[in-house]
């Protein structure tokens, strides 16, 4: 099968504005959008996009595919190729386009740093964690920091979406000295948190379902 891949391109050294460039690529049933991008780069080595693991764990290849932010390696072509045989790819919204599909990630990681994103260990903690607590920590600890939630979710609180996921992951960890105190800095109401929980589950490539957490 063949489709028209329309990629938003921008080279800060030569272009005043981003523009769309169309490529024609062959594809097969099992292929991902990342496979198409890799084929395209063979034909046009100047095309810039990030990629590494190709198995939905490194979080490098977040971009807008068919009007939604997703991971290219986590998206099968057959699920997004329109009837007209074309597919549009753009950089992640809300992030500055640096070149083609490469966006600025530093503000994303800086926002994460603001929530003290590490376990502040309770002094002399014995290292025991119940399986129930462990199961609550696991879903938010699955986060790969890809940026899709920051691009897709506009939420009411004072921390960015991925930083909120990290905050919840730490707040439910019994080894953390701050624990649920951490939720105060989010500025969220129960309702706001529930709305975020639902939005996150619908956009997150890892399908993260946030566990219940007390807002104090």
């Amino acid at each position, binding site marked *: 099968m063949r489709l028209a891949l329309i990629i938003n391109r921008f*080279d*800060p*050294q030569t272009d005043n504005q981003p523009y769309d460039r169309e490529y024609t690529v062959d594809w097969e049933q*099992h292929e*991902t959008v990342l496979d198409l991008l890799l084929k395209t*780069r*063979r034909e046009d*080595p*100047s*095309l*810039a*996009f*990030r*990629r*590494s*693991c*190709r*198995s*939905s*764990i*490194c*979080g*490098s290849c977040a971009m807008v595919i068919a009007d939604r932010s997703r991971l290219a390696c*986590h998206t*099968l072509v057959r699920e997004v190729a329109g009837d007209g045989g074309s597919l549009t790819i753009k950089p992640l919204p809300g992030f500055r386009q*640096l*070149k*083609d599909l*490469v966006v600025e*990630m530093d503000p994303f*990681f800086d926002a*994460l*740093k603001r929530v*003290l*994103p*590490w*376990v502040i*260990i309770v002094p002399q*903690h014995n*290292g*025991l*964690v*119940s*399986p129930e*607590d*462990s199961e609550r*920590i*696991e879903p938010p*600890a*699955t*986060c*790969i*920091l890809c940026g899709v939630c920051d691009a897709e979710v506009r939420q009411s609180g004072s921390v960015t979406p991925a930083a909120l996921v990290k905050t919840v*992951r730490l707040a439910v*960890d019994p*080894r*953390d000295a701050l624990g649920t105190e951490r939720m105060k800095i989010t500025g969220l109401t129960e309702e706001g948190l529930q709305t975020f929980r639902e939005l996150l589950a619908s956009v997150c490539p890892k399908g993260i379902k946030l566990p219940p957490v007390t807002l104090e």
Partner: protein
Amino acid sequence: MIVHDMVIVGGGLTGLMAAVQAPPGADVAIISKVYPTRSHSGAAQGGFNAAIGEDDSVEDHLFDTVKGGDYLGDQDAIEVLCSEGPDVIRQLEQMGVPWSRTPDGRPAQRALGGAGFPRACYAADISGHVVLHTLYERALAAGVRIYPEWRLVELLVEDDALAGLLVYDLATGRLEVVRCRVALLATGGYGRIFRKTTNAHANTGDGTAIAYRAGAVLSDMEFVQFHPTTLYGTNILISEAARGEGGYLFNADGERFMARYAPQKMELAPRDVVSRSIFQEIKEGRGLGDGYVNLDLTHLGADKITRQLPQVNELALLYAAVDPTQTPIPIEPAQHYSMGGIRVNLDCETNIPGLLAAGETANVSVHGANRLGGNSLLETVVFGRRAGKHLVKAADRPSPPPRSSLELALARWQAIFCTGKPPQPGDDSTSAIRDAMSRTMTDKVGVFRTGEELREAVEEIAALRRRYRALRVPPGEHPFNYELIEHLELGCLLELSEVTAGAAYRRTESRGAHYRMDYPRRDDANWLHHTLVRRGGDGPVYEAGPVSITRFQPQKRGY
């Protein structure tokens, strides 16, 4: 020019673990060609071996590792690995790693291949991921300076000692000189020399190849691990945890064929044994389709699969359109791990003063001729920690200023760019050479090797290197110039392909993952030694290096 006391190249498990060892206020920086959380350590699924179980012992872990490596591993290094394991797991616990837990709250452990005990501490099947992110958190807490998307270009060596690094900043497209007192290479493996590999696109062995060019000794490059269970076609990893949790392997006749090859350990024999067995079944006509076998998890039940193996479940559903709770997963072996690397001592020192290496980049050698599942993650944190501590000690030395080494490096840099017209369609290309290289390596330097095919591989790689030297890339300081990056990476891959094929051709015996059909037996009389290789003027120069044998004399290896 950028100046730091200590520079770590690579932000995966080894690099991050090393970085967080520095005392408060220490001047340590990480240079990584990807953001640290993108590192391939995060794709590791199974777990971290450590003898923390009440019925387990360091002694047993040591023996399993020595035997698993077919007696080529250095037993003094394996002793360090196994005896420091329990303490490093406790340290990771205090850092906040979210392990899966036993009912009484301790880190849960599962069985992986070649182990006599359920020894791998895990977090579902995202063990590497959770520890990578925890160590990244610790690095942020410690204020480690991180240079993301900076790629090492050359090591600057003056009078045989490290003087600094030449690095390329992807975002600006500019070269920078980084001066340091001591540097650690933690750049991971080089699986991308093979067409069929579980490794990420980034795993191009940059640190290993660049150190080799700078005069570092590599060792045991012929020992390449092929993981038995990768998704047929895409070679995406399906964790050994799938067999550790009870998965079976079946051939086309519905037989659990491992009974023929490893009647005691069955599916949990070491990876070299299982991979050979799968290919033997396929060769003898008992494979399915165009050449795969089935990994069957259906009898484990949906609850266990989604709880213990959520990623395996997701990967099979997405990339193979198979629901593992209902249908067996089609799998084939593919390159997974590089046992060889930069030769280092127990303090992670290379033969170049001021240059350290650890993790998959290095060869210390704890894995010998075949690595056991769960031991590479352990190696990253045990030797990452040792390297980090030794960096601090080694940083008291002044380093020589880079002079002639920098001039030479800059001249080599200029020489890769075209001065006339840019490459035209139809010209030779990075991707054409890379395809040919990776096909040669998979076809001729794979699980079953012969002298004739290895010789052909050596010649083919040499021809590809000549083609590579004639390639030129467009000049200019472009941001995110992946064309240039892929060109540089291919140079590293070719360098490592040459020594992998060359070392495999030289070793006329079968040991661990290196299986020669023309020399099917282990030959301790002639080959119980490491293969050391240096880069000479006319190509690789090989020699033998002694193996440390302290407690376990070589015995017949059966499972």
